[in-house]
């Protein structure tokens, strides 16, 4: 069998279903189409599945409409911490990072962990240091910010202030 398959998801996007306009829905679908095209270009030219999933995810990390990379949600402190993982089915090699703050495409950092370190999971400032040492594209944490996500944080803070529960986190904004 010589064919290839690519499946992607965008989570619930930047908005919840009942708040998204037709225009915003169209923009999100265009981003998903670009991600599919990026992965398809790799697979259709007999490229690897690992290259294809990295390419597709990186497109969605660069798009402000999804909760990853540029357009990710804020943490309680008002900054952005990013998690990512990648895995090769044949070798069972895997790379994952969590709490990274400066790598433009966290999926590429996860891949660097998989291919350039003996580890599987790196976190926080250590992952950021490994990213710099690996020569990956670095950005300020503010690069990831969008107005939409900042408004969601403010709304969540108001509700959490009312309830007094520090864990009053609404999954809908995940």
């Amino acid at each position, binding site marked *: *069998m*010589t*064919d*290839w*398959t690519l*499946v*992607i*998801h*965008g*989570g*619930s*996007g930047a908005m919840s*279903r009942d708040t*998204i306009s037709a225009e915003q829905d169209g923009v999100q*679908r265009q981003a998903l*189409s670009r*991600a*599919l095209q990026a*992965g398809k270009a790799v*697979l259709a030219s*007999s490229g*690897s*599945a690992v290259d*294809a*999933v990295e390419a597709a*995810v990186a497109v969605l*990390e660069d798009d402000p409409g*999804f*909760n*990853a*990379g540029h357009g990710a949600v804020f*943490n309680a*402190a008002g900054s952005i*911490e990013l*998690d*990512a993982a*990648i*895995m*090769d*089915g*044949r070798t*069972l090699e*895997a790379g*994952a*990072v*969590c*709490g990274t703050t400066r790598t433009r495409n*966290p*999926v590429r950092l*996860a891949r660097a962990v998989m291919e350039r370190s003996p580890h599987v*999971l790196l*976190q*926080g400032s250590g992952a950021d240091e490994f990213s710099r040492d690996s020569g990956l594209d670095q950005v300020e944490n503010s690069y990831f910010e969008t107005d939409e996500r900042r408004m969601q*944080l403010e709304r969540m803070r108001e509700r959490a202030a009312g309830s007094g529960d*520090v*864990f009053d*986190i609404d*999954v809908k*904004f*995940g």
Partner: protein
Amino acid sequence: TVGAVARDTSGNIAAATSTGGLTGKRFGRVGDTAVIGAGTLADIRTCAVSATGAGEFYIRTAAASAIAARMRFGGESLQVAADAVQAEIREMGGSGGVIAVAPDGTPAWSFNTPGMYRGRARADGTLEIGIY
């Protein structure tokens, strides 16, 4: 959260997931995305999976590994296994979904929460984008 799974022309499979986590997260909270076997897994013996949703449920059920184990030891198909694990997570009060692909190229997705964006492409020209 965003994710992709793929099967290439050599027959290998891979998975990748990326996320900002939860709005307002505290104390360095980490969800399922970076936990191999929970939110992200690829194993040529069974499937490649990428998950999105309430990460704590996906970690506690080791969701991606559970789908692979149901296939490997229970002989279930990818879709049946994915639906079963998703149903379990729903029963526990968790929301979200998974996308997956088997080594033979069969794609699958299973969601228990509306509003999930997904898409797929295949060598036969299939190109589909939708919202669950």
